């Protein structure tokens, strides 16, 4: 992703977005949040296959049914040398990806100082509630974590690819290239080829590569 897009809010830009993963890690914990229907389960699938292919143990947890219909949804993915629980523990997330900006706030319980927030600068109104802005959300998240990044993934995907449904895949590309996610490009590309329906593969690969 172009450097300028990384922090649409000034405070986030100050952070060092080029974080490098520690080479050695025993486990990596991801929580993805968003609004039901945003493709969280697909994103989870792509990550899980990539982690398996890289040689890690992997477990994930997702929710189906009524909880999905436009409601707040969170899914968990953990990978590493030895993984038992499918759920990330409180304050245990290494990376939190939010496909809708306000949904990031609900994930605060999984975050600690070391946690990276990668937030799609995309807003969907919550009926009956005032719409928060990036500055407000960023301000709150930065009290919890030192690494808060807003990326206009939906907007970029809509402008450059004509389809914002791949915003999550675009974020993945950004996460890998910035070292926020200890998985390689090849592993994710191979996973996309395996998990995405043939008619959507090109779009997904484009979105992923666009963020490099």
């Amino acid at each position, binding site marked *: 992703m172009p450097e300028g897009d990384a922090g649409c809010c000034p405070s986030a830009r100050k952070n060092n977005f080029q974080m490098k993963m520690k080479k050695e890690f025993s486990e990596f914990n991801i929580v993805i949040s968003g*609004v*039901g229907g945003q493709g969280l389960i697909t994103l*989870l*699938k792509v990550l*899980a*296959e990539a982690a*398996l292919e890289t040689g890690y*143990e*992997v*477990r*994930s*947890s*997702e*929710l*189906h*049914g*009524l*909880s*999905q*219909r*436009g*409601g*707040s949804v969170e899914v968990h993915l953990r990978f590493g040398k*030895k993984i*038992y*629980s*499918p*759920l*990330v*523990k*409180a*304050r*245990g997330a290494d990376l939190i990806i939010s496909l809708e900006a*306000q*949904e990031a*706030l*609900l994930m*605060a*319980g999984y*975050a600690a100082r070391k946690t990276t927030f990668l937030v799609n600068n995309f807003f969907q109104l*919550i*009926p*009956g*509630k005032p719409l*928060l802005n990036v500055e*407000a*959300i960023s301000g*709150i998240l930065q009290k*919890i974590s030192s690494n808060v990044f807003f990326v206009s993934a939906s907007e970029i995907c809509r402008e450059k690819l004509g389809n914002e449904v791949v915003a999550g895949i675009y974020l993945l590309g950004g996460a890998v290239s910035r070292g926020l996610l200890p998985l390689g490009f090849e592993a994710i590309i191979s996973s996309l080829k395996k998990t995405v329906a043939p008619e959507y593969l090109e779009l997904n690969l484009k979105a992923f590569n666009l963020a490099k």
Partner: protein
Amino acid sequence: MEELLFNKPGKKIILLGNEALVRGALEAGVQFVTTYPGTPASEIGNIFAQIAKRNNIYFEFSTNERVALETAIGASFSGKKCLVAMKNFGLNVCAEPLLPFLYTGSKGPTVIAVGDDPSCWSSAQSEENSRGYAYLAHLPILEPSDPVECKEFTKAAFAISEKFKIPVMIRFTTRVAHQKMPVVLGEIKPGAAGEGNFSRDPQAFVTMPPRVLEMKRELLEKIEKLRVFAEKSSLNKISGLASRQKNKKGIITSGVSHLYVQEALRELGVTLPVLKIGLFYPLAKKKIGNFIKGLKEVLVVEELEPYLEEEITRIAKEANPKLKIHGKDLLPEIGEIRPEQVIFALAKLANKKYSLPKKIEISEAVKRYPDFCPGCYYRLVFQAVKKAAPEDTIFGGDIGCYMIYSLPPYSLSDYLSAMGSSIGIGHGIKKSGKQKLISFIGDSTFFHSGIPALINTVFNKSNPLIIILDNQTTAMTGHQTNPGLGITGMAEQTTPVSLEEIVKACGVKNIKVIDPINLAEMEAAIKEFLEKEEVSVIIARRRCWLLSQRQKK
């Protein structure tokens, strides 16, 4: 989906718990599958709907869980290897034929897969712990903790059912059903095609007194034989036994909690003996007795009601009366258990320092309720009702997408209980007073359990207005077919069952079928029917918007 069918033993693929359960059934050679959809069990039926034909398996979406079970009982009596899948509340619907099925036993091996939903992620009604049926029905229950076990335990359940001629339940939870991990595939046994054979055997299949009491004795004997099996079964596993002498402390757990226990032991850097109960009923009491002998303290880690803890308390009275038993003193009885709560409980047991992370309160954080799809016509019905019904009208809710009427910003429902209850409870309210009442029920839910209640309103003379929201699918659980659609779960043509013909045949005189896009017509009908002396039914018919969108693609 295709991968699920690979007959490539040894291949490792990532599977959802429910997918792994299906794979286990395929590896066990299942022949006959019935279900009524319900989260977190829905994928089991959805997958069979797609693969049954290719695999010579009979599959159906039954009208409700009770009929699904009864259908499987008939197939089992005819020698078929059967799987019945449902969510927890479905087992309540099944309860009546379930108990005698334990008395007759199964002829063809039969597994009942039941999904509980701690924290009620996708469940109105109650936070049911279906383990209770073990005691009510003498129903053997296996509890897998992850997809690998979903597959293995399903095979084990079929084997137990075959050996002991008894139906066996797999009880899983949302975090097991919707957990994913790599699973190593085994050999698929093709479902043997061909006719089953029901051979007459009233001694075996007729539960009439005085024979029924003999059958009960036979059942109890079976359970004791099965308990002997349980004592040696690898479904109940002990690990970390070497640390027993040193610490004199241990852990007993089951289901997904076992994963949190393993995680917590690693987190705290302690080794403790762990007894994982995979076969919850009949319980391996001797094995538990031997495990707790010589221990000073034991921690029971289980979700919801403390069935295991209470059993262990009873066993300890003989085996180790001084044993200190922890469980619900350290862990919640309401809601699913979270990993950090188990770390906390284990830290207490192991005298390690650990404090639960403080809750971060962010006043701006708002949890989004599920809402109707953008083009959902239920929105229109809501509009019409709000306009046409007097302020003090009582609104009855039921189980389906229209439960969203109960949530803000709609907040319409005045009561909501079980499948079909909008009508039965509505009748009781009408019989108790003069208030106007409208109840909502979906097409699939009406077929499932609305009909007897509708007959009752006619028979016993009350006058609610019932709006059947006919979106021509079972939408909430993933667009399964239902009796109104003229197509079976195996995609075969069948006679569509007409809602209006049923309603008429029940004796309802005031009935209208209205497309909800005709708002004025809907409003007028609501106004008219609310004044009637007898029960009225409006069938609001338009195909589910989401399904129509998908079918356009």
